[in-house]
């Protein structure tokens, strides 16, 4: 019997966007195209649009102020991210100059069409939200954001209606909320149950696994995409394992570095849409993107990974 695989519905705009992204990637990626094409993607449950399983965070790394040398280095990292098949870049008005640095890099790179722009609103009272969002948009220099999230749930009761209204008017494609390092998970759950969210952003890594109990299952149940922040515990996890040799079974899951092993643990969870490691290094962004490739660990291997890293 022939199995019919349901194809996610896409509107004309999404189709054009995808085609444009593919065209831009073909031009800019050059010899990297084959590698970029094999990047693992995950669907956003609310639309079916697929996102690469590894994105790019900007906390600390892209906050370099007016330093032109550092800004050029950030642009090189972002350029390599796109070349390797990346799409989602995440920032926040809380991150100092990061938004402007990303905007400058996008301009240098000729506004890559593959970009999936994820930003946040972080202000109280909520009446200040629209002005802050517009300032952020000008920093990025994009026509509109793909995703806006309420940063750390700050004034979420006021911001979510604003974001939902923007989405209804076509000024925004997706709405989400964020938290980090395990804070306010009960409130996050409550919002996930009550509000029509497209995305939730949480901290998850091989050590910090609180979200496995309730939030990740709830995200699957409610059809909410999950972005994972702090995949390396802001570098602490990498420092913890860096001097240890990779376990002999790392090759079985296609890992040649600890960063890839740690990322594969995260993105192999079926509820996770995208992990967003931050880096200032071209080599590291390339290495991180390599994690978004088959093979991924199965459940028994994931348990083995968690036990191994916890013992280090």
């Amino acid at each position, binding site marked *: 019997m022939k199995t019919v695989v349901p194809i996610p519905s896409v509107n004309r705009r999404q189709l054009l966007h995808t085609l444009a992204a593919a065209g831009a990637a073909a031009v800019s990626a050059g010899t990297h195209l084959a590698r970029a094409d094999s990047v693992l993607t995950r669907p956003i449950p609310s639309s079916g649009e697929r996102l690469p399983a590894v994105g790019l965070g900007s906390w*600390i*790394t892209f*906050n*370099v*102020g*007016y*330093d032109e040398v*550092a800004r050029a280095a950030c642009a090189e990292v972002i350029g390599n991210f796109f070349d390797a098949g990346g799409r989602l870049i995440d920032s926040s008005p*809380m*991150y*100092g*100059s990061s938004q402007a640095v990303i905007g400058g890099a996008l301009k240098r790179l000729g506004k890559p069409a593959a970009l999936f722009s994820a930003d946040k609103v972080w202000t109280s009272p909520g009446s200040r939200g629209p002005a802050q969002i517009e300032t952020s948009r000008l920093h990025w220099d994009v026509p509109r954001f793909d995703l806006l999230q309420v940063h750390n*749930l700050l004034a979420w009761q006021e911001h979510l209606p604003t974001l939902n209204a923007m989405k209804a008017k076509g000024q925004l494609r997706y709405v989400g909320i964020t938290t980090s*390092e*395990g*804070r*306010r998970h009960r*409130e996050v759950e409550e919002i996930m149950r009550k509000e029509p969210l497209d995305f939730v952003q949480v901290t998850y890594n091989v050590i910090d696994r609180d979200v496995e109990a309730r939030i990740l299952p709830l995200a699957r149940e409610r059809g909410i995409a999950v972005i994972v922040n702090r995949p390396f515990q*802001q570098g602490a996890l990498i420092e913890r394992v860096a001097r240890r040799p990779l376990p002999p079974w790392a090759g079985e899951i296609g890992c040649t570095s600890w960063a890839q092993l740690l990322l594969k643990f995260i993105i192999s969870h079926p509820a996770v849409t995208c992990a967003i490691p931050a880096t*200032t290094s071209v080599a590291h962004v390339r290495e991180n993107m390599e994690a978004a490739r088959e093979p991924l660990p199965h459940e028994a291997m994931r348990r083995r990974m968690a036990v191994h890293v916890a013992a280090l």
Partner: protein
Amino acid sequence: MSEWWTYRLSNFLLFSPRTYYRLFELYNSEIWPGQVLALLVGLAMLALARNPGPWQSRVIAAALAASWLWVAWAFHYTRYASINWAAIYFAGAFALEALLLLGFGVVKELQLRRAGAGLLSAVGIGLFVFALVLHPLIGPLVGRSWSQIEIFAIAPDPTVIATLGVLVLASGSSTWLLLPIPILWCLVSGATAWTMHSADAAVMPVAAAVALAVRIGRPSKPDGY
């Protein structure tokens, strides 16, 4: 802030150590040779502080006020705020300290203890000399580039330590109004350096502790003035 007890200092650090110290490198190169002028002003203040009368005290207070105002504008507002949104508030606090120095040190008078008048004046002058000469050397000593050195009246830390030295030399209850902002900055700067794992993170808190200890334990009237 919900669940405030779950936050660590590192949650508030928005930039990397490399970016922070690179800020000083770019700042130093942009204002060169202003550092020479700043050092000359500092040396002139030190000379005046050796035997201070009413006009010398006022000149020292005015120079300090100008230094705080410059740091507020040129460092905090114009440069540091590009990587740390809280620097806008630091700029406000530094400008306020400049106004306080003008009010209580120029319009009124600080009444400075002269050099060589006991342990307290030695500590005051010692802190000033440390800020002017030794503090700039700490960065290179712990491995940072010479181009990133922090100079009195240019960078906040040595400016604050020099001010603490002058306030240790000063008498009168109004000087207590001048202490909170420098002390708070010592804590902020120390916390920032500690979070960045800087080897010299203890310098500012220790300077604040020394200044407070001698200020609290000092006689109510100035000697040798």
